[in-house]
């Protein structure tokens, strides 16, 4: 079994108003060194695959077909092997 940890974020070219609002909050707390806040989604999938490579292919396919909309979003992921007890 493999665990895919997926991050979906708005594409860099798209203004992220939610990130901007949170950035204002961070600044009003006094953290002036923080900039460019981007908000996204974190998604986990358990994938029953025979190899890590296969799990990665499935994850990529799911991201492209459903989890991210390529018009406005980018995605990245890491796949970890889960040891069965």
């Amino acid at each position: 079994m493999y665990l895919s940890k997926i991050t979906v974020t708005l594409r860099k070219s798209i203004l992220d108003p939610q990130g901007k609002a949170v950035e204002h909050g961070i600044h009003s707390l006094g953290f002036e060194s923080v900039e460019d806040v981007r908000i996204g989604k974190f998604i986990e999938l358990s994938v029953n695959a025979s190899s890590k490579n296969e799990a990665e292919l499935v994850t990529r396919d799911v991201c492209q077909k459903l989890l991210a909309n390529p018009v406005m979003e980018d995605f990245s992921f890491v796949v970890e092997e889960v040891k069965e007890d």
Partner: protein
Amino acid sequence: MGKVKFGIVVFPGSNCDHDAQYVAGDMMGQDARFIWHKESSLGDIDVVILPGGFAYGDYLRCGAIARFSPIMKDVVTFARKGGTVLGICNGFQVLTEAGLLPGALLRNSSLRFVCKYVNIRVENCTTRFTSACSKGEVLEIPVAHGDGNYFADNDTVRRLVDNNQVIFKYCTREGDVTESSNPNGSLMNIAGIMNESGNVLGLMPHPERAADPLLGHTDGRKIFDSIVQGFTGIERTTETISMERR
């Protein structure tokens, strides 16, 4: 020709399906029936309406799950064959997710749900959805959405403009397209677009909520009138309008 057959797709979470059915069926006397999203076939239908609402609770992204409903396969086939498809609000979002219209609808730039009357300018009145309007006419129609901020890449937008596929733009009462008349941050104040072949329209404003004179606004009726006239060839006369007013 007899009555125009409207098929209104009902997703779990649709909430403007009855309003659309009321306008097309009860008010205009056409045949307007509901089609549950689990159906695999549209049946004998002239016009498909994807209504407003929150299909699947807007989970993941607005319209992202609804596009995989069984009925959507036949909606795509119907659209590819040139069938008339109208997507209102959430229906517009479903159409972009399904790839029947280009671009995407992002979170409103204000981050707020916007529910109010807006003015939209008719940019192209030579379509099957706007033939009862005149070019540059300003329609007053309500919006009610949290994700109506139209976005597409530069090439896509250029194509939309070059092919006259931008049908409605947010504007002032006088018809000026200004930043302050844009309720959601949409690119170029875009409120509604059509596909290249001209048979699929998506718009964020709700024409079905501005059709019955009892509700005070009737501009939305023109979009329904345009569609029906396209099939029947009969224009709505002042006589029938006064009859409708009862």
